[in-house]
């Protein structure tokens, strides 16, 4: 019987069936489940790498070493891995390597919505795009063959909607391809100028061969119907289109780089009106225009956000959004927020009280930027907080730096916070850096990382010692505090900010969702003592809420995990432990 799988599971299955023996990734929504699923297959190697660049480099080594290799990351992760990627395109592979880029149109869980098909064009490598889980499996399998046949890394580009939609999949058997022989071949794999010039010639030849391949591959297919409109599309947009316009003619591209020019021209010649339907950037459209084809694309469809069937219906069929219930004006938004008991809340509460400038980073704690904590001045990409705080100081001087902190999670610090910290020391910055060490990669669903001391398969490994690492970099002042002990935390922070030297505070307490045991006490708000100041409400915990009728705060015993934060915030000692 066919099975339901999310796209990410299907990709892992495809790599398994293709005989891959190595898989590596850094977790990132929407890509995380790809390699975590691969790790469920026994006897194969799977790992969480410290970041995407390392993941790809491990992949490059494994490929050159002869193993079919799967590397997965979210779209912005490819930016981190771009350096090895562009040159790996020159060396080519030994055994096949498939790099999955999981893009996030609509930014469900990301800081931008870049379109990574662009990487395929720049790095001159094939980009393959499935439209459901079955294709995710089949295309991944095929991608390994393409990688070996054309001596190139292959990008499998997916989007959140594909990664996290379950559709039916028929699985196949694994082929044991074995290891390819490894032979030293310096002109192919050592990219110094003399060799790289020769490899570039191969890259240009290869892209021409791939163009030929694109003309005939089963990845691209024409579906004839009504020829008054012909639509070229790919990925999940194809499904939306079929949902609302089952009868139009479609050229469905499974290979989006390089494009099959002859096939597209022959399709264009048959239809009265040619349209490209592609989420995000006009990657296909612009190439068609450069060939002189008359085509519509982004003048119809937006550059912004995720597409939907009703959007396509509205644009192409003129069926405008159906009438609303009229309730929507009064529905308060429900933004995501930190869990009750989250250690980060203590940090952001303190930062706000001290009115500091916070250079933030990527993780659950980015939620500290939202009301009511409002605790972040800037957040750009993984690891940026520390470099930004140094930049702030160099622009505004050391006095200003007394009001600036960098805030970065443990997993993010290992990902890309170490080199900027070296910069701080090397260039005599006086930054104060808070590492939020909650012993996990929380946002993406609690993956391990080097500083948790466990592997992807939950097996013990040598634990990265963060304080020792930071000291070795040259930070002399390293403090470890519990962020939910507010007085101590604040005092530590004040001391380190005032010090005209670089320092690191490790705010150490496990993620509230990792704490399995039930709370050992229960809190309540004594209405007699509550003076309606709402200080406790301003920490933004769902364990405590405001009742307007009598203007008092109340603890919700079902959601409060008794972390003890709000009792410390209340200046009237109104939040007390339930006796007995």
């Amino acid at each position: 019987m066919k099975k339901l799988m999310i796209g990410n599971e299907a990709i892992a299955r495809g790599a398994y069936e293709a005989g891959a023996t190595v898989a590596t990734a850094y977790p990132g929504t929407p890509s995380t489940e790809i390699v975590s699923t691969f790790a469920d297959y026994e006897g194969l190697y799977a790992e969480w790498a410290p970041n995407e660049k390392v993941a790809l480099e491990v992949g490059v080594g494994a490929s050159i070493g002869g193993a079919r290799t799967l590397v997965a990351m979210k779209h912005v992760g490819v930016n981190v891995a771009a350096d090895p990627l562009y040159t790996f395109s020159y060396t080519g592979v030994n055994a096949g390597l498939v790099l999955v880029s999981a893009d996030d149109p609509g930014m469900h869980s990301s800081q931008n919505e870049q379109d990574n098909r662009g990487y395929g064009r720049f790095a001159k490598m094939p980009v393959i795009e499935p439209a459901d889980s079955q294709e995710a499996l089949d295309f991944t399998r095929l991608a390994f063959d393409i990688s070996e046949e054309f001596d190139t890394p292959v990008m499998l580009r997916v989007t959140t909607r594909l990664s996290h939609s379950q559709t039916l999949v028929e699985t196949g058997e694994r082929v044991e391809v074995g290891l390819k022989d490894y032979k030293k071949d310096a002109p192919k794999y050592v990219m110094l100028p003399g060799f790289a010039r020769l490899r570039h010639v191969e890259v240009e030849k290869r892209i021409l061969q791939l163009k030929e391949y694109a003309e005939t591959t089963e990845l691209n297919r024409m579906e004839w119907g009504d020829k008054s409109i012909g639509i070229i599309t790919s990925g999940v947009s194809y499904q939306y289109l079929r949902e609302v316009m089952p009868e139009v003619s479609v050229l469905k591209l499974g290979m989006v780089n390089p494009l099959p020019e002859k096939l597209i021209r022959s399709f264009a010649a048959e239809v009265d009106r040619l349209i490209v339907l592609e989420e995000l950037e006009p990657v296909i459209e612009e190439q068609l225009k450069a060939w002189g084809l008359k085509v519509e694309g982004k003048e119809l469809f937006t550059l912004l956000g995720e597409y939907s069937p009703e959007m396509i219906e509205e644009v192409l069929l003129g069926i405008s959004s159906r009438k609303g219930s009229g309730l929507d004006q009064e529905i308060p938004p429900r933004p995501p927020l930190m869990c009750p008991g989250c250690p980060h809340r203590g940090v952001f509460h303190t930062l706000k009280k001290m009115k500091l400038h916070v250079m933030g980073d990527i993780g659950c704690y980015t939620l500290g930027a939202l009301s009511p904590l409002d605790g972040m001045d800037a957040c750009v990409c993984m690891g940026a907080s520390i470099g930004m705080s140094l930049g702030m100081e160099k622009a505004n001087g050391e006095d200003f730096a007394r009001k600036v902190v960098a805030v970065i999670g443990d997993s993010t610090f290992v990902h890309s916070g170490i080199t900027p910290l070296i910069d701080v020391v090397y260039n005599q910055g006086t930054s104060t850096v808070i590492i939020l060490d909650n012993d996990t990669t929380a946002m993406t669903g609690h993956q391990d990382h080097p500083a948790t001391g466990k592997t992807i398969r939950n097996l013990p490994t040598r634990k990265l010692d963060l304080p020792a690492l930071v000291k070795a970099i040259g930070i002399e002042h390293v403090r470890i505090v519990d962020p939910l002990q507010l007085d101590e935390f604040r005092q530590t922070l004040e001391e380190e900010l005032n010090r005209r030297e670089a320092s690191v505070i490790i705010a150490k307490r496990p993620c509230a969702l990792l704490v399995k045991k039930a709370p050992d006490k229960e809190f309540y708000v004594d209405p007699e003592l509550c003076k309606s100041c709402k200080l406790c409400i301003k920490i933004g915990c769902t364990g405590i809420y405001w009742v307007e009728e009598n203007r008092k705060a109340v603890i919700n015993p079902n959601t409060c995990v008794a972390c003890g934060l709000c009792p410390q915030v209340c200046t009237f000692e109104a939040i007390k432990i339930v006796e007995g």
Partner: protein
Amino acid sequence: MPKQTTNVLIVGVGGQGTLLTSRIIAQVAVQMGYDVKVSEIHGMAQRGGSVVSQVRYGEKVYSPIIKKSDADILLAFEKLEAARWLDYLKPGGKVIINDERVDPLPVMSGKLKYPVDIDKRIANLIPDTTIVDATRMAEECGNSRAANVVLVGMLAAAINIPAEEVENAIREMVPAKALEVNLKAFREGQKYLSATLNRL
């Protein structure tokens, strides 16, 4: 087998267990031989945000997401979320609302008001609305955390899918020690909705 696709929209608050519910319903649809697609939310929204899972099944399903005004049934784990997603319901569709209020942050902090009687107002707009206290029913079955399975029972009765198939799916997906409570919760939910339907 009906040619028409059935569209089930399951909404709630991150952490309420909407994912398990959609997975059970989808599994049953697979066992019944349908083409099935399910769309889920992972990542940031799961931290207490508004979440939605969409299950579509029929002879052939293309889009994994449901169009506005196209859901046959809206199952809301929380009242406000029912209102938020109501525009996705098709005319003549059914609504099941769990009588649970989870205040979003702007309400908890007193900045905005939780709309009064929101469930009753939905019931006024949509004739086929059932409001149920699934948490209390689950408690009576032995564990308040089985509230989502009570709702599965109601959903199964509402869209007419066979109980044995659902029970099989529950057996597959729920850990052994929680199985009995969950099966009981499922049957209670089913009974409750059938009884409501008979009254209509």
